[in-house]
């Protein structure tokens, strides 16, 4: 007897130990992922800049400050060869090959400075411009030896600094890793999610309400139920093919647009919402329906006054899970052309756009060393977005949760 009791306690302890170690293992994996992402990604949010002295008097720009104040300022600026002027200034300042220290887009900074204050054209100026990829990486401690030497020289003349890269948070994709931004993809994701939500949520919830509260149980509703369950398990790339065939080839909607992405992801999210919604509605006790019917509420009143409010927390949780899956989805969007190189953030729902996970995919494919940290930085943005969505879900669930 004693032995059996001891054995039972031992097996209980063993079981608890196994459970605990499983939890610890998954927590360790999660921590490893997050920490490594943070370490690789955080430098992506900063940018090394070089102080470039430029003498506009002796440069090849030949611009008249007065013309830049007139109505033709844009055309005048577009006609000026800032690129060679910048390269010449860099060569002059840092010796032969100095232009290679600067980012390909350094001249944009010079142009912006001239545009802001045309007066600087009359003399000399010192302007901070983004450094080339090699220098940037060297400044973050992982560059090739020749870049380290160049960086040391720049540091000696006190003309290098590393600061927050605002361009990364406000810009869109580019060919040079020092010029890329995440805002284009983030905005694309937001717009796509918006389309997905306003389509999938009402349709999904009303389908769930109809199937649970109105539809009679027969062979047809069984068939529909099985179809919906299967639909939720269909690989996402199939939905991409469907979107390609229906929305692009048949309905001729614009390629790469958030509206098409949203429609495609809505098809994918809807079954998830229907299933979650049905479960939430099913879990509302029948006694509440009886109570409302018993004092003369109609079916619609029962649903909208009692069943839906009680089922809402569950429906919202399911919706957010579906939306989070849609947010992280890449494959179906590749099929409808959202993997294009888009160098400006989308302005409306039919403009070409890309989304965060596709941007991560595109950048991870790039050859240039500078894209490694940008990829990780984009992943951080994606994860923060996901965490924010989950936070909203938890907040809403707690807000609407009824205590019995």
């Amino acid at each position, binding site marked *: 007897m004693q032995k059996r009791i001891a054995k039972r306690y031992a097996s209980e302890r063993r079981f608890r130990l196994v459970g605990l170690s499983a939890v610890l293992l998954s927590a360790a994996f999660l921590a490893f992922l997050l920490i490594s992402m943070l370490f690789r990604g955080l430098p992506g949010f900063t940018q090394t800049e070089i102080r470039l002295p430029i003498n506009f008097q002796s440069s090849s720009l030949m611009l008249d400050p007065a013309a830049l104040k007139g109505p033709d300022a844009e055309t005048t600026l577009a006609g000026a060869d800032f690129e060679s002027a910048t390269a010449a200034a860099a060569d002059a300042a840092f010796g032969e090959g100095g232009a290679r220290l600067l980012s390909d887009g350094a001249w944009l900074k010079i142009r912006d400075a001239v545009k802001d204050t045309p007066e600087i054209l009359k003399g000399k100026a010192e302007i901070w411009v983004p450094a080339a990829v090699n220098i940037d990486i060297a400044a973050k401690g992982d560059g090739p030896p020749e870049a380290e030497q160049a960086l040391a020289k720049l540091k000696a003349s006190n003309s290098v600094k590393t600061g927050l890269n605002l361009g990364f948070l406000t810009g869109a994709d580019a060919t040079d890793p020092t010029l890329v931004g995440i805002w284009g993809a983030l905005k694309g994701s937001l717009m796509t999610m918006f389309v997905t939500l306003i389509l999938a949520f009402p349709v999904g919830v009303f389908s769930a309400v109809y199937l649970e509260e109105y539809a*009679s*149980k027969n062979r047809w509703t069984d068939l529909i139920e099985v179809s919906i369950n299967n639909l939720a398990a269909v690989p996402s790339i199939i939905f991409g093919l469907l979107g390609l065939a229906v929305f692009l080839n048949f309905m001729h909607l614009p390629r790469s647009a958030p509206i098409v992405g949203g429609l495609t992801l809505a098809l994918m999210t809807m079954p998830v919402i229907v299933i979650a919604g049905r479960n939430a509605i099913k879990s509302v*006790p029948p*006694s*509440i*329906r*009886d*109570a*409302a*019917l*018993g*004092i*003369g*509420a*109609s079916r619609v*009143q029962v649903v909208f*006054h*009692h069943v839906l409010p*009680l089922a809402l927390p569950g429906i919202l949780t399911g919706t957010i899970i579906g939306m989070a899956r849609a947010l992280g989805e890449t494959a179906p969007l590749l099929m409808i052309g959202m993997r294009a190189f888009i160098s400006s953030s989308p302005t409306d729902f039919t403009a070409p756009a890309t989304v965060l996970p596709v941007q991560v995919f595109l950048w991870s494919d790039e050859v240039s060393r500078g894209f490694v940290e940008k990829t990780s930085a984009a992943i951080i943005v994606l994860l923060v977005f996901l965490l924010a969505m989950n936070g909203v879900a938890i907040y809403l669930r707690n807000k609407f949760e*009824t*205590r*019995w």
Partner: protein
Amino acid sequence: MSTQALEAIANKQEATSDGTLKMSAHDVSVFYGPKQAINKVSIDVTQENVTAFIGPSGCGKSTFLRTLNRMNDTVAGARVEGLIKLDGEDIYSPSMDVVQLRARVGMVFQKPNPFPKSIYENIAYGPRIHGLAASRTDMDQIVEKSLKRAGLWDEVKDRLTESGTALSGGQQQRLCIARAIAVDPEVILMDEPCSALDPIATAKIEELIHELRGRFAIVIVTHNMQQAARVSQRTAFFHLGTLVEYGDTSEIFTNPREVRTKDYITGRYG
């Protein structure tokens, strides 16, 4: 039969004569799919009297009760045959609006089922969906009157905004009765209203039924024979989906005509 039940009948002062007809059922049969749950039951419910349905579990008394306000409509595969009239109107005719019917024939369920809302909202919901209150003060009056009639006002008047589910079981059931009478029904159906309650809460509900008698026609299903003896003037005994005997409560309990009734009330089966 037990001495308790006998005493209850002896102490009862009310007249047991026939009152004015409120509801009547003629040859009512109920089917759940192919299975017949009720077989040709005919019963009259009067305005002045409390009518009790008794019988062993599964005899169909609750099923029959639910046909009286068409709550069986919500059960998939349920079918009702026969004629049920409320004030001479066929309640299963196409011209009868089921929502209006349930406002006229209210129901209290076996398990207290208040809405997970405030006590005030629990009462106000019915009058609101039926448009019975023109203003906020009207509604306040309806809520107060209903709670007073249900004998709950003094216990909850200071906490009307608290959740109805925070009350005790007996209070919840009286809240459900108050909710039912708030829409001013003509008939109240009670489906074993005390089966989930302790004896003190049960006594309060029974007292309440006494007070509500006359104002509303009351039909109560119970598996507690003493309770039927205490609260009702008319008793119907159901067995295996048929109505075995229906008559004045005192007659049924002291001098049953049928052997099955006698066996049941003397505790041979049940």
